[in-house]
Each structure stands twice: as C-alpha cells, then as structure tokens.
C-alpha cells in the first residue's frame, strides 16, 4: 500500500517538475501551437492539392492540355509517395528555401521554418489525398455516371450531384486516417529547427533532468488531438449516412 502511494506521489512530483514548474506548460503550449498550425495548414493545403490533382486525373481526356496535366499529376504523385517526408522537408528547407532566400524572393526569412513545414507536409499529403479521393470516386459504380449522362446532365453536373456525394462517403474514413497520420508526421519538423511539440521534450528534459515524463506528456497531447479528430470524423459520417437510415418517413 505504502509502495503504491509512493509511486503515485513520485509520479505527481515528476509531472509537476515537468509541466507546471518553471512555467513549462507555456513551452508545451508554444510547441502545441506550432504543431497545430503546421498540421492544420498542411491538412488544408493537402486537401486542396488533392482535390485539384484528382480533378485533373479523372476529368475527360479529350484535350491535349488535359492529357499533359494528367501526366504531370501522375509524376507528382509517384515522386512524392516514393520519397521519405523527412527528405522532402530537408530538400524544401535547405535547398529550396535557401535558394529562394539568396534570390531574395517573397522576403522569406531563414527562420520561417513553419511556412516551409506547411508547404512540405501539404505537398506531401496532397499526393496521398489525391489517391484517396480518386479511390473514393472510382468506388462509385460507373453506371451512376451513365445514368446521369443518359438523362442529359453534363459530365460536371453528374459528377457534382451524383458521383461526388457517394465518393465522399466512402472516402471520409481514409481521408481522416490521412489527417491523423499527417498530424503525427509533423513531429519530424524539429529536424529543421522548428519548435514543434516533439521538440519541446528536449528543452524540458534538459532543464528538469527528468527523462520519461515529458515524453509521456507529449504522447498524451498527441493522443488527445487525434481522439478529438476521431469525434469530428464520427459526426461527419453520421451526418452523411443519415439519409439512408430514415427511409420512408
């Protein structure tokens, strides 16, 4: 009994030393802020890129320009999916950012790591997102498109009114899976000196001399974010499938 009590007291004091003492929590908050900014920005950018690339991939290929864009989109997806995200981050940060800086374009400062991180993770996620969305669209029976077209609806109208809503429904779980992966993937942003949530561990550990506690605290914060996202997913899925349940009022 005594031992258990001591264990918890030790745990609490460690937690206090690593979270509350020296205003460490504000450090975590700073890291969390950066992680959320990067993750949210990258999710948004990834979704936009994904939608654009998907549109290019599935649109009718009658014009030469559409075939050319399709080729470019294919190369983009292949290259991005075929290389590690850490390397892409290095390339963006050390090669592209530096060369842009030397040309003094856009007025980006050396320290503007967050911008680079959003760009990198967004571009990376866009490739996966494009494949996810394409999969969702392909999962819709082609007969749905044919039926729409046979009634005189244009390709675009059929796509928006018939195919997209059905594709969204089947793609939502995988889209959120990608969001979750992306949020956790941003933890490598520290490699290029961005102060994200994972990077905070180093500061807290060196100052508090506690090895394990900051790790668990950070793990818990990631878990909470992902759980929250899971709730959002559930709400959206419920909303989308509402139609099917309350048939024949």
């Amino acid at each position, binding site marked *: 009994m005594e031992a258990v009590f001591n264990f918890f007291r030790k745990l609490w004091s460690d937690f206090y030393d690593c979270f509350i003492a020296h205003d460490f929590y504000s450090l975590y908050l700073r890291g969390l802020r950066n992680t959320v900014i990067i993750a949210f920005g990258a999710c948004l950018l990834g979704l936009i890129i994904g939608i654009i690339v998907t549109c290019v991939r599935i649109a009718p290929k009658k014009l030469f320009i559409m075939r050319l864009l399709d080729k470019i989109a294919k190369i983009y997806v292949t290259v991005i999916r075929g290389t590690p995200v850490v390397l892409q981050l290095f390339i963006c940060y050390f090669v592209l950012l530096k060369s842009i800086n030397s040309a003094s374009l856009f007025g980006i400062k050396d320290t503007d790591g967050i911008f680079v991180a959003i760009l990198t993770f967004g571009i990376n996620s866009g490739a996966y997102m494009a494949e996810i969305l394409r999969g969702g669209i392909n999962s819709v029976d082609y*007969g*749905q498109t*044919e*039926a729409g077209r*046979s009634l*005189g609806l244009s390709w675009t109208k059929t796509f928006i*009114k*018939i195919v997209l809503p059905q594709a969204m429904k089947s793609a939502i779980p995988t889209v959120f899976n990608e969001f979750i992966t992306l949020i956790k993937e941003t933890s490598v942003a520290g490699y290029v000196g961005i102060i994200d949530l994972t990077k905070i561990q180093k500061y807290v550990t060196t100052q508090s001399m506690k090895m394990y506690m900051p790790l668990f605290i950070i793990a818990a914060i990631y878990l909470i974010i992902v759980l929250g996202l899971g709730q959002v997913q559930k709400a959206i899925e419920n909303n989308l499938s509402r139609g099917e349940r309350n048939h024949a009022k």
Partner: protein
Amino acid sequence: MQNEVIVNVNNIYKYFDDLKVLQGVSCDIKKGERVAIIGPSGSGKSTLLRCMNLLEEPTYGEVWLEGKLLTAPDPYLHFDVIRASETYGRLMAARKSEHPDESAEEADIAVIADIKKNDLLKKHEGKAYRSLLRSTEKNNRTGINLARRDMGMVFQHFNLFNNLTVMKNITLAPTELGIMSKSEAEEKAMELLEKIGLADKADAYPSTLSGGQKQRIAIVRALAMNPKVMLFDEPTSALDPEMVGEVLDLIKQVADTGMTMVIVTHEMGFAREVATRVLFMDKGNILEEGSPEELFSAPKQERTKEFLSKVL
C-alpha cells in the same frame, strides 16, 4: 417518310481495341415503332443500343436523331466531302488517263467506291476537304446533352442514384436542366409514381427497394423527361424471376401510350408480344429483321433458326 425517322444509325462500326463489336450496322427507328433487338451474347446488341445515345461513341459511322447529327460526321458517308479530298482528285486524274473513254459520272462512282472499299482517306486531305467536313459538322451536329433529353434510357442494373431519394431521382434531371420547376417536376413524378403504385416510396432511398421496384422507378425516371424514344438495355436480365412480370407489364403500358421504343431483350415471348419489328444480331451485324411473326415463326437465316431453336 423521312420525317418519321426518329433515330437513324448509319453504317456504324465499334471497336474496343482489337475487338470488333459492331461491323457496319445501319437501321432506322421510326416514330411509334417498337423495335426489339435479339441475338446471342456478344453479338453487339447492347453496344448498338448504347451507340444510339452515344454512351458508346461509334468508331466510324453516324448516328442521327430527328435529322440532327449526334456523332462527328463520317467523311465516308458524305460524297461531297469525299470529292473534296486530295485522294479523290489524284485518283480521278489517274482514272482519266487509264480509261480515257469513260464518262465523268462513271469515273466518279468507281473512284468513290474504291475509296470507300479500301479506306483510302487520310487524316489530312487538304483545305477544301477540311472546311467542307467542318461545315457539315456545323450545319448538322447538335450537342449530345441536348439530344439525350429526348432519349430515355433504362439500364440492366437500374442505376438509380443511390444518394438520392426516389422523388429526387425522378426530379433531378428535369429541374437541373431547367425543363420544369421543382413543384411541376414533383407533381409529375408523384403522378407517375401513383400510376405504378409506388407513391408511398417517394421518400425512400433506392437501397431499400426490391429489384423490380428499382427498375420500375428507373423507367419512370426516364419517362419524366418526356422523351421521344425510350431505349431499354436488357431491362429484366438482372431481376429475380418473380419480379420480371411487373417490369414487363410496365413496359407494355408504356408501349400502349404509343412511345417509340428500342428494346434489347432475352425475353422472346415479350419481344414477340410487344415489338412491331424484331432485329436479329450476330457477330456485330444485323443478320435478319422483320415482323415478330415472320422472324419467330419463319426465320430465313440458318443462324437465326439455330439461335431460336436454342432459346424458345
């Protein structure tokens, strides 16, 4: 006579890579006619039907709806276009030196026949040819989305929109295309649903319906556009046997309204009863056609006899 033709299929070929599905099929569908297309699997029946509203684009040949061209013009089907080509000019000159005593008309016929037979037209045939082909297209061709409004299509697998209620399935196209207002479309849809006894399913989703109900609603969906011709692509092939009857009954009702119809079917009894003309297809060609009595009781072709002996 010419005015009565609703759909005109002119010498169409359809190739899927190396597979030659249609090999020069021509047919006219006249107003009020009910044409049944029968034949073994893989004979090109469905492809012919799908070519009529361009769900499949013919590789060669033309499809016309009420005097308007749906496909791109096929140069081989327009003599004036052939005559404008460089190949024609070259061959005519050669012909003249070879047969100096031949009249111009005879030479013209022979050269055109030669060009058609041996597929001699190239991609580039000079300015006159190109501009004539373009003006032929401009004068005759109509937008496919506009044309499809006049051609209702019923599919083997129903293809009701899974994300919409029965009511929305029926009203989507008329309202989206601005043909009817929302209330008009709903009124019309309700009227049609009442006719087939499915008014209580108006707010149901397709996934909750039986195959027969789905297909009857698919027919109603096509009818709601007030089409001039209805195309049925094996409407009962995906149904349980006990549901075939209700769908065939509805098609018969539609037939009784005087609707022009083209039906690809394996239901020989139904074809015989409803159709005014039957086409028998095999290997991408129309082998035989005639009234149901002629074709079913006294088929002329050996292949037709063989097929009918197997299915009847």
